[in-house]
């Protein structure tokens, strides 16, 4: 690619924002008429907020698409040719951490947890737990691409650990952990980290890149469930000791 293309894939971005917003706005208006009957001012404010959300989302997704998709791939291709392949692990760790750090839904979840717990669970606790978890698993994912480790060798022990931890964890952290698994695979991870994995595996040959890329997403979804629930187990353990 030799020229700057800001509008690349714009119709797709518009379509995905529209399909996300319209059903929601429609549902809200129906609810407002039939059941909610909020005062007009509140209703209008919410609609304004919805418009802002759509505009912001459009700009954000398009920016991510033109910035992090091609560049993730370029970084991946460059890293795949590095002679010392062990370097991929710390780099995967770092990029995994920072991508999740920038993931919008992770922040929304962390904010809502702090608000709902009236501050007893701090947003930074959730944020760090999720980011560290994803960082480890992206590092592991790099190792998997380099050494061609089958995905199930990681996923099966991973989900087994999750099932075991469920029985020892603080209840509140179980719910947060499961949601954290859902939010970590947001638009940043799905473009940047996915493109990174595709770039690395395409420059190294081996398995079809698409399989490698999908595998990484599966690991990113599992990572925060384990890390946040591990935190829940520690908190539960401390509570038990106090009693």
């Amino acid at each position: 690619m030799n020229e700057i293309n800001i509008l690349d894939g714009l119709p797709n971005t518009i379509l995905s924002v529209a399909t996300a917003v319209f059903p929601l706005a429609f549902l809200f208006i129906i609810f407002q008429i039939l059941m909610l009957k909020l005062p007009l001012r509140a209703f209008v404010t919410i609609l304004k907020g919805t418009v802002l959300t759509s505009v912001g989302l459009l700009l954000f997704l398009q920016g991510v698409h033109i910035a992090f998709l091609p560049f993730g791939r370029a970084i991946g291709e460059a890293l795949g040719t590095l002679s010392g392949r062990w370097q991929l692990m710390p780099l995967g760790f770092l990029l995994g951490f920072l991508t999740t750090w920038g993931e919008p839904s992770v922040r929304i979840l962390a904010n809502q947890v702090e608000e709902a717990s009236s501050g007893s669970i701090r947003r930074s606790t959730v944020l760090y737990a999720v980011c560290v978890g994803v960082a480890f698993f992206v590092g592991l994912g790099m190792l998997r691409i380099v050494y061609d480790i089958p995905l199930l060798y990681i996923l099966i022990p991973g989900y087994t650990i999750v099932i075991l931890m469920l029985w020892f964890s603080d209840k509140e952290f179980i719910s947060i952990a499961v949601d954290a698994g859902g939010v970590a695979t947001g638009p940043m991870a799905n473009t940047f980290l996915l493109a990174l994995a595709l770039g690395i595996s395409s420059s190294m040959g081996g398995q079809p890149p698409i399989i490698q890329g999908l595998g990484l997403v599966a690991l990113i979804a599992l990572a925060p469930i384990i890390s946040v629930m591990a935190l829940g187990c520690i908190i539960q353990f401390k509570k038990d000791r106090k009693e």
Partner: protein
Amino acid sequence: MAQLFKEKFLEVIKSITPLVIVVCVLQFTVVDAPTPLFVQFLIGSLMAIVGLMIFFLGIDIGILPMGKFIGAELPKRESLMLIGGLAFSLGFATTIAEPDVLVLSRQVDAISQGSISGNVVLFAMALGVGLFVAVSMLRIVFGFSMVYLLTAVYAVVLILSFFTPAEFVPLAYDAGSVTTGALTAPVVISLALGLSSVLSGRSSISDGFGLLGFASVGPIIAIMILGILGY
């Protein structure tokens, strides 16, 4: 409003810039991509930062209150049908609309060499999400423990993993991430928080959260079952 804007501005700067800086460092040390591509990266990053600020602002004044109002209104009608039905249709509709799901369903179509059609996959995933959202909304109403529910569904996923044809396994696990469009998370989280806030004796944390993550297991199971049946 000005205070809120300043807060969001700082949050977005803190969240995106570290990654942008590291990417710049990599560009000058190992990557050395063509200049136009790097300039495009910088422009795109700026767009993402501005966009995210507006997005967060809109989420705070529009989407979160909307979700909480609707969630809090639901139990007042004392109709399980309404809650389950709404949850199901919300999960079903957002999945059908999600562009990632379309891409994924085409991949299943291709891997199965057309024996499992893309439309069937799309429908199965939407059904998976819809059912799981409905189950976890009703869980909040009945106050059923998350531990049993999660143990059961993760056990099902693990067992199915051994029987699912190998090509489908990464696809199936990836399908779990379809419930995570940028807008789905705030909507679902606020809806569940709103619902649990008006029911007495519910913890706002352990009952208010978990819905989104639980819903993501639905499509994993759906694709695995399709993979097993399709061969």
